[in-house]
C-alpha cells in the first residue's frame, strides 16, 4: 500500500494506490437542515439513470431518516461496529481507516451486502430518537430528534470501490475527480459493492455488473449541476469544486463553506476515503451523534450555522443554493445580493440575500375589518 495524505483526518494514511489528485475535484454541499425527505432528488436520479431491468432497487441517490433509517440496511452501523471504538485527537484521527483495518488478504475492510439489505429502502423512515419525559414536549432543546440524510456517491479522493476492484474497472476522471465504473470492463465481482463503506455501489442482477452514481457527468461537462441538485425543491444542494485546504479560495462557494467557514463537513471522515459531499450538520441533534457522523468539527459547524442569520456572506451563499442550474465556480456578495460568477468572474445569476418582508396592519382601514393571518 502507498502512503497518501488525507486532510480530513489530518494525517497520512495507507491506500492501495499513490496520491493522484484530479485537476479539479467534484464537490458538493448539502444543507440537510432544509431537507424534507420529499425524495424528488431520488426520483430525478431514478428516472434519469436507473429505470431499467435489474435496477429496481438501485438508488444512486436516496434520502434516509437518521438515526434509524439506512439504505442499504445498516450500511453505517455495520461498519462502525466492525471498526470498533476508534479515536480522534483534536482534528487528527488516530484510529484506523477502512484501508488500515483491512484484514490480511483484503484491500479494504468490507461490509456485508446481501439482497435483503436492499429490500427496505424506507426502513426507519421518520422514526425519532429519544423519548419525551413528563413535560418534555414543552422544553427546548427538544429531547427527541431525527433528521434526513440525503446521499449520493461521495466521489471520494481515495475511493474504496476503486481500491477494491481487482480489474481496475473503476477510475477517477482526471479532469473532474468523478468516480466512474467502466461498464465495458466490469465482470461483476462485487468487490466494489462490499468495499464502499457508504453502500453506494449496486449490483445489477440483470446485466451481472455493478453500477454507481456518475454525478451526471454529461451535465457537469456542460457546466450544469446534476439532476438530484437541480430538482431539489428544498434547494439544499450546491455542486462545485473542492480544493485541498492549502489551495482553498474564498470566492469558491464549496471552499468557502468547507475550508473557510468549516460549516460543511464530510460524512464519516474516519473511514479514510476523503469523501467530497459535505454536509451542514443538523442543528438539533446531539453532539455525540454528530461527531461520530461528521467528525470533530460538527459542534463548531452547528454554532456557525446558528449564527448564519447574522452573517451576510453565509446567508448570501445559502441563497445561491438552487438558484441556478449552472455550476457556480465563484461567488461574491454585492450589497444585498449574492452573485454567481463564472470562471472568468462574469456574473450569471443574482439573488437577493433577504426575502422582502411586507407587514400589513392587522386592521384593513378600507373595509374596516380585521385581517386574519391564516391566509
Amino acid at each position: 500500500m502507498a502512503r497518501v495524505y488525507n486532510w480530513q483526518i489530518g494525517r497520512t494514511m495507507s491506500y492501495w494506490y499513490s496520491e493522484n489528485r484530479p485537476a479539479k475535484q467534484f464537490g458538493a454541499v448539502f444543507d440537510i437542515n432544509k431537507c424534507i425527505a420529499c425524495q424528488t432528488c431520488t426520483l430525478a436520479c431514478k428516472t434519469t439513470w436507473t429505470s431499467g431491468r435489474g435496477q429496481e432497487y438501485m438508488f444512486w441517490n436516496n434520502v434516509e431518516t437518521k438515526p434509524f433509517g439506512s439504505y442499504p440496511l445498516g450500511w453505517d452501523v455495520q461498519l462502525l461496529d466492525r471498526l470498533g471504538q476508534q479515536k480522534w485527537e483534536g482534528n487528527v484521527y488516530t484510529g484506523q481507516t477502512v484501508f488500515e483495518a483491512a484484514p490480511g488478504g483484503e484491500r479494504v475492510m468490507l461490509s456485508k451486502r446481501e439482497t435483503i439489505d436492499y429490500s427496505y429502502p424506507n426502513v426507519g423512515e421518520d422514526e425519532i430518537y429519544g423519548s419525551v419525559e413528563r413535560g418534555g414536549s414543552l422544553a427546548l432543546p427538544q429531547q427527541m430528534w431525527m433528521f434526513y440524510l440525503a446521499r449520493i456517491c461521495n466521489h471520494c479522493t481515495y475511493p474504496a470501490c476503486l481500491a477494491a476492484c481487482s480489474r481496475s474497472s473503476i477510475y477517477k476522471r482526471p479532469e473532474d475527480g468523478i468516480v466512474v465504473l467502466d461498464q465495458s470492463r466490469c465482470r461483476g465481482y462485487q468487490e466494489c459493492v462490499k468495499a464502499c463503506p457508504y453502500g453506494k455501489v449496486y449490483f445489477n442482477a440483470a446485466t451481472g455488473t455493478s453500477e454507481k452514481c456518475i454525478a451526471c457527468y454529461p451535465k457537469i461537462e456542460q457546466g450544469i449541476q446534476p439532476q438530484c441538485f437541480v430538482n431539489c425543491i428544498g434547494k439544499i444542494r450546491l455542486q462545485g469544486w473542492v480544493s485541498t485546504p492549502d489551495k482553498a479560495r474564498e470566492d469558491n462557494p464549496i471552499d468557502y463553506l468547507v475550508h473557510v467557514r468549516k460549516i460543511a463537513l464530510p460524512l464519516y471522515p474516519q473511514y479514510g476515503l476523503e469523501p467530497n459531499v459535505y454536509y451542514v450538520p443538523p442543528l438539533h441533534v446531539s453532539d455525540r451523534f454528530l461527531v461520530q457522523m461528521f467528525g470533530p468539527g460538527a459542534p463548531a459547524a452547528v454554532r456557525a450555522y446558528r449564527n448564519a442569520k447574522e452573517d451576510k456572506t453565509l446567508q448570501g451563499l445559502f441563497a445561491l443554493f438552487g438558484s441556478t442550474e449552472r455550476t457556480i465556480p465563484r461567488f461574491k456578495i454585492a450589497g444585498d445580493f449574492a452573485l454567481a460568477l463564472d470562471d472568468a468572474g462574469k456574473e450569471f445569476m443574482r439573488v437577493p440575500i433577504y426575502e422582502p418582508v411586507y407587514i400589513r396592519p392587522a386592521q384593513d382601514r378600507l373595509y374596516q375589518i380585521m385581517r386574519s393571518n391564516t391566509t
Partner: protein
Amino acid sequence: MKKKFLLVLITITGISLLASCGGPLINAQQVIASRTDKELPREDPNSSLWDKVAEHPAKLMVQDVAEPKLAEPGVETIRVRAIHDGNWVVFRLEWEDKSRSLIPESGTGSDAAAVQFPVEPGANVPDAAMGEKGKGVRIWFWKSVWQDDIERAREGKGDRVVSLYPQGSTDHYPYQANESAREEMETRYAPARAAANPITAQSNPVQVVMAEGFGNLSPAPIQEGTGTGQWKDGRWRITIARPLNPGKGMDTLEAGMRSYVAFAVWDGAAGHTGSRKMRSGWIPLVVE
C-alpha cells in the same frame, strides 16, 4: 489395504495409470486426454465414453497470491477426465457443491469453473496463477448463469429478474412507454449492455479469456469453446470443450504432446467471484 497398496505402488514406480477395484481409473500424476474415434461428448457430461478414460483428482488450493484472496477454503478437489478426437478436446470436471448457484445477486456469485493453458508450454510456462506479463495463459471459463440464461431463453422462462423474483411486479419501465423505441430504451437503461460488455452478450456457457497476470483478464481473440453443466444431488458435473488448435493468438495442443493444464472453481453461494476462488497449480497434461 488394496487401495493403500495401490497408492504406494503409484508413488514408488511412477506408474501413473492403474485401476482400483470397482472405481474409475485413477491417474494421480497427470491429466491424460485419451483419443477417441467416436463423437466427442462436448455437451454430455454423462456420456458412457467418460467411463473409459482415466480420472485425475486435482487438488485445489485457496487463491492466496493476489488480493483479494480467498479467506475460507471452498471446493478442495475436482475430478478431471479428458477426451480428444484430434480436433477438439473435452474436459469433464466434477465436484461437490451443496448449493446450485445460478444467477448472482448482491453478495452471491455464480457457480463456475475454468480450465487454463499456457500459451507456450515447456520452459516458458508462466505462473499458474493467471500467467505473467509476457507469458500469457488462455482460459475456457464456464459459468452456470450463462448456461441458465440459454436454458431459460430456450424454455421461454423469462429473464434473470423474473427468475429471481417470480412474484415480483414493477409499476412501469420507461421502455414500455414507446414500443418503437423499446430496444433502444432497454439498452440505454442497461449500461453494461450499451457499453458492449462481452459478459452481457454471452450466448455460450463458455467464454474464452486470456490473461497475463491478475487483473487484466479479457476476452480471447477466438471464442471457440463450448460446454455444459449438470447439477444433481449436491454435485456439479460439467464439460468444457475447446479446439486443439483454435488459431492465431491462442495456445495450441496436438496429439502426442505434453503440456500443462490448471483448474479453478468458484462456489457462488459462498460469494466466490473473481480472484476469490479455489485453484490448482499446473498439472501435466498428456494429449495421447
